[in-house]
């Protein structure tokens, strides 16, 4: 447990736009986070299910930031639903354009993305901190 506490917070960015994903990931790494990149719904699932191994593996993920329009077998909403079921303690932040996200969210009767594109990267940091603090409070 003590070892885990010394590890940087691990963030998973699930975004099918490589340029967006890379730019955001670099910024967050610069801020001291360990950032794992996933290009699709399936890649995100694989990473989240991958335990830490001596020779690799993603290990625990503390936070997931996903684009609504994630490619693959599911979009960002599907990933959030999967996480709620399988890893309910991992906070999820959805990002997307207002119109497309609102349409999908409405169809799913779920809430829309918290981050509306275009957003400033500083907003991501604020949301990560806020959600992780919320989770810490709920554990206490």
């Amino acid at each position, binding site marked *: 447990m003590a070892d885990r506490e010394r590890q940087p917070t691990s963030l998973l960015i699930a975004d099918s736009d490589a340029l967006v994903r890379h730019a955001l990931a670099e910024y967050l*790494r610069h801020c001291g986070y360990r950032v794992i*990149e996933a*290009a699709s719904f399936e890649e995100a699932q694989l*990473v989240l299910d*991958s335990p830490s191994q001596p*020779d*690799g593996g993603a290990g625990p993920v503390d936070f997931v930031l996903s684009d609504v329009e994630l490619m693959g077998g599911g979009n960002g909403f599907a990933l959030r639903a999967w996480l709620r079921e399988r890893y309910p303690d991992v906070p999820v932040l959805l990002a997307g354009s207002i119109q497309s996200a609102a349409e999908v969210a409405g169809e799913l009767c779920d809430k829309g993305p918290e981050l509306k594109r275009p957003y400033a990267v500083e907003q991501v940091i604020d949301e990560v901190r806020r959600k992780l603090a919320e989770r810490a409070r709920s554990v206490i």
Partner: protein
Amino acid sequence: MHEPLDGRANGPVILVVEDEVLIRLDNAEELRRAGYRVIEAADAPEALGFLSGSEPLHLLVTDINMPGALDGLELAEMARSLRPGLPIVLASAHAPHGFEADRVIRKPYFASELVKIANELIEATWRTGNDNQQAC
């Protein structure tokens, strides 16, 4: 872990193209620990977005067998024309034919082996200041 070569704030940049996310993650993290900046691409079209852009690149590492319209060999050919002089490492379980890569790494391999190859290939160009292999 070595410091970024010649002490620049940002290390050399390596583009890693691999469709298996856990292998890509392992390679990318090991290379970052070694002082490199790493751009991750899940397939050839993603990689082309970076190769055709203005981001400085110092090494391309690509898997050969990848799903989609372009495989790693075709990507390597395109990289040669977009970024002449950019060192290219091909990763494959089988010996590749038809492309003269700077190095071939046979799968399965340890990420530490890739770091060693990266050190060898990058050091010369980085030390001579050839750090802006942008697309033509």
